[in-house]
């Protein structure tokens, strides 16, 4: 029961995060939305950790490592945003198009 509730919550939050990633133009808000997506996935991991072999705690280990990776990603991402801001004078992702990709 709790597992299904957790998975439902995770799906809803994932959808909200995806909406944010697709629609936001400011680089920092993009990061906020990405964090929402990652947290939704982490809830999934923790919920499943209780189902298959709770003793091994694989899901929780994964969740811990995921939180660590998210911290790395946020740090490097924000450093990049600051560097881009200094170079282009704006944090709007649509204006960073020198590579014309």
């Amino acid at each position, binding site marked *: 029961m*709790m*597992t*299904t*509730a957790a*998975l*439902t*919550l*995770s*799906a*809803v*939050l994932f*959808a*909200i995060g*995806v*909406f944010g990633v*697709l*629609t*936001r*133009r*400011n680089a*920092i*808000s993009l990061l*906020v*939305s990405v*964090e*929402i997506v990652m*947290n939704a996935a982490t*809830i999934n991991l*923790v919920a499943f950790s*209780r*189902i*298959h072999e*709770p*003793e091994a*705690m*694989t899901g*929780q*280990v994964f*969740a*811990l*490592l995921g*939180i*660590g*990776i*998210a*911290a*790395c*990603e*946020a*740090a*490097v991402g*924000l*450093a990049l*945003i*600051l*560097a881009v*801001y*200094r*170079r282009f*004078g704006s944090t709007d992702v649509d204006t960073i198009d020198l590579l014309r990709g």
Partner: protein
Amino acid sequence: MDTQEVLFVAFGGVAVLGALYAVATRSLLRAIVALGAFLTAIAGEFYLLAADFIAVVQIFVYVGGIVVLMLFALMLSASGKRHPLAAVDRPALGAVLAYAVGAGLLWATWSTELPAAGPDPADALGSLGRALLGAQLWPFELIGLILLASVIAALSIVRGERQ
């Protein structure tokens, strides 16, 4: 409905409201604060899912670290604006795609027979420690390296401009 389930729904509600506000609001500062509320609610959910260590680490790293990082970045890139604004572009397309993804995930969740949750381990913290240093030793050491690499990367990216 017992206490656990009510709390689960309550935390879930706060999380969803926080996330909605964070993706929709025009003020960046409020988006980050809403993210903070969202992350705290998720920590509560973790606690209810018998992952108390993960819950506390979430507060430590996410709320005490990442939210602070974002606030610093906001303040250093606001260029004098009191309320840095962030627009929402093409909301209709985003909403449709997000709805499709969410609906797909929900259908997958509700149409599968999930096995019942096993009994929570007696010494959860001990099991976690043994797993980290036993079966999952490689990922554990690697993440240490990744953290070191990202600290060095972030420092050099930010310092590089000054020289």
